[in-house]
């Protein structure tokens, strides 16, 4: 009796916790509402199964508890029942998998109108690069990295000269505009993760990874690193600010391009050298 009651309490308690818990997904800020829907669907299907199994166990434990004068049934197999359960389970699994795969297909199919920008991870900071006026990102590689070119942008690629660099500062995005997030790392694995966007992807040195999304509301969101990247992994933070169009343009106009940053770096070394020679 006691055991059966506890089993029921576990079932009921879990459901109540689910309904009343103050801890739940953050309000979404991207187009990936379908992901949330797939989660909800999975909750429904699996939740029902979970509760049924717990109640069934509770019933058995209560009803068939040991008595000296009773005997257990002897039924080694029951093909009909076993096949029935197999088919039901297969249907349930298909019911979760099919929508999941459809949404996954959306997730990896980048729409043509998405503009690309780049996230560059390093221990333990975030850098971003947006295409300049030409709308194109220049090529880049870790091999190109120097003191004055910390992101390794190809200095000989003309389309890279006007790229906008944001180093260890907030990233801004324009609301309602789909973006393709290209990711690169110059040292170890990192992972670009904004909980409200629902998307994340590892950043792997030596390759470029991507996902796409559309920010759907303005606001400031935390960027976290979600792949263990060393001793300051938890402190690798940044922010992304989703602006309306005019705020975004104002912000963009204030940012430095690659060509400007190189020139500035050279000036600085020059002054340092002249100062030193004096």
């Amino acid at each position: 009796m006691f055991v059966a009651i506890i089993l029921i309490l576990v079932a009921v308690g879990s459901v109540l916790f689910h309904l009343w818990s103050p801890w739940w997904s953050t309000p979404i800020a991207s187009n990936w509402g379908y992901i949330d829907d797939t989660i909800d669907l999975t909750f429904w299907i699996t939740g029902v199964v979970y509760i049924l199994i717990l109640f069934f166990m509770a019933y058995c434990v209560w009803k068939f508890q040991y008595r000296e004068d009773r005997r257990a049934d002897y039924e080694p197999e029951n093909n009909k029942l076993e096949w029935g359960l197999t088919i039901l389970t297969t249907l349930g699994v298909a019911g979760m998998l099919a929508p999941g795969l459809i949404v996954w297909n959306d997730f990896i199919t980048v729409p043509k109108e998405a503009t690309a920008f780049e996230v560059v991870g390093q221990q333990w900071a975030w850098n971003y690069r947006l295409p300049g006026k030409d709308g194109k990102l220049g090529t880049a590689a870790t091999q190109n990295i120097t003191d004055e070119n910390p992101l390794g942008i190809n200095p000989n690629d003309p389309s890279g000269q006007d790229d906008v660099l944001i180093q260890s500062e907030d990233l801004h995005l324009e609301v309602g505009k789909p973006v393709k997030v290209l990711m690169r790392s110059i040292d170890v694995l990192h992972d670009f993760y904004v909980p409200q966007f629902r998307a994340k992807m590892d950043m792997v040195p030596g390759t470029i990874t991507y996902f796409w999304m559309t920010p759907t509301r303005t606001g400031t969101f935390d960027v976290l690193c979600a792949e263990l990247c060393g001793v300051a992994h938890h402190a690798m933070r940044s922010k992304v600010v989703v602006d309306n169009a005019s705020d975004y343009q104002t912000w963009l106009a204030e940012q430095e391009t690659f060509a400007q940053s190189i020139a500035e770096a050279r000036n600085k070394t020059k002054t340092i050298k002249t100062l030193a020679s004096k």
Partner: protein
Amino acid sequence: MADIGHDAADYAPPAELEEVDLYHAKSWITKYVFSQDAKVIGIQYALTATAIGLVALVLSWLIRLQLGFPDTFNFIDAAGYYQFVTMHGMIMVVYLLTALFLGGFGNYLIPLMVGARDMVFPYVNMLSFWIYFLAVLVLVSSWFLPGGPTGAGWTLYPPQAIMQGTPGREWGIIMMLLSLALFIIGFTMGGLNYVVTILQARTRGMTLMRMPLTVWGIFVATILALLAFPALFVGAIMMLLDRVLGTSFFMPHIVELGEHLKYGGGSPILFQHLFWFFGHPEVYIVALPAFGIVSDLISTHARKNVFGYRMMVWALVAIGGLSFIVWAHHMYVSGMNPYFGFFFATTTLIIAIPTALKVYNWVLTLWKGNIRLTLPMLFSLGFIVTFVNGGITGLFLGNVVVDVPLSDTLFVVAHFHMVMGVAPIMVIFGAIYHWYPLMTGRMLHEGMGKFHFWITFLGAYLIYFPMHYLGFLGMPRRYFEMGETSFVPESAATLNEFITVTALIVGFAQMVFLFNLYWSRRNGIVAEKNPWHANSLEWQTPEMPPGHGNFGKELPVVYRWPYDYSVPGVEADFIPQNVPAGGTATGAE
């Protein structure tokens, strides 16, 4: 029903070979230290695994103290925290669970349950244990070397694992890789033994389809391990070369602290494939023995045959086979080709079907049983609850697109603890309460056992069930501290405190359990022979605990499956496997 393995028969095939003489220990040292008796080796494995498991348990307290009460404990810094997490995870998965299920239960139970006198290669079996022991020592040594143990996470992902920014780069990672290599060598020796013993040394009449599911579970898990561990082995050796000799298997061109390193051209993702080609089957290496054992516990203590025995066997085999084609579900957001997602999500969700069938068959075994709420039964119930819970969250993570927001959050931590931490450990406890009388001749104390069960079961549920919700919220795993964010509410800190306090209480209950193990050896109630009225052969030995050679003068002959409980028309509610058709149980009176 003639083709069903559980029909009893008078006929047993004649012996094909004469018995080979056993190795007999000549001194105390060869009897208890360098022993070649599988029962002693099993206990040696179990004790070593428990000892190192206690280290991992203490580490989990330290991790929890930091998560529950950040900024409180000065002796935990970020580097230490990552070292704790890494060592905790690796010890729990490999050095505790794998060693305990296969080395511990495998050694103790396989020969007894299939009716053999010992493993077929007793000397190799002894080596297996001592190499495992050495692997544990090498692992522990990293605490005493400069830089301490590695903090690379139990997944040891390069490049990070062998770079400056990760604690333990000096020696820790080297010792970890060496220790794993040793573990695998030792395991391979034991594993070949288990497989060959099961295939070749079964007693007369013990057909494969008359083996207890415990043996089936250990058998399939061992085959998985023999096929999966080599992937980890090569991965470990390649990383060792990258670290020590400067090769670039896993290392692309890297700039660290403004300096170009000498590496170039390697692939970090290659390591992940190798790791998870081992890592996923590893989950089942732990789970399948638990599945097998729990089937036997439920059947024995519900006085009813396992429902759908043949289905249970085929499900074990199917899960084992499928477990080799799902590994990349751990890599959905690793940057591998995203089209792999379709394939691996499909295979992963397919594996849920045979797994679900096993669950149905366990609960259907309870249906119309005559259920004794003994400690093994209680732990089995606890196993079903936590396993179903953890299996369900696996359906979230396996369904590729749902994994995207959840991967690398506390949801994952909660999921794998529930499914491969709590659930198999429930089975281990149940198994210990079940077989302790066989091993020692005494029963464990019932009151302490009940205390242990309720605190552990309810406590573990309270620790991990709410933790999923912190994952939904977006809290990442492997975070020394959350620090300031705009999305984590104050209340999450309160929940973390609650989880920590609960974890400490659950930890305390384990001390009670250990005390019970110690105390009952001298003071426990003396067990009657075959105290649970079980059918399988380990309980039918002439002496209890079974002596050297297990079965006295003559090996038992098997006439039926091990699940003849409550057979209609037979007075006793069990008929041991070595009773011919029409015979009755001895000792059933």
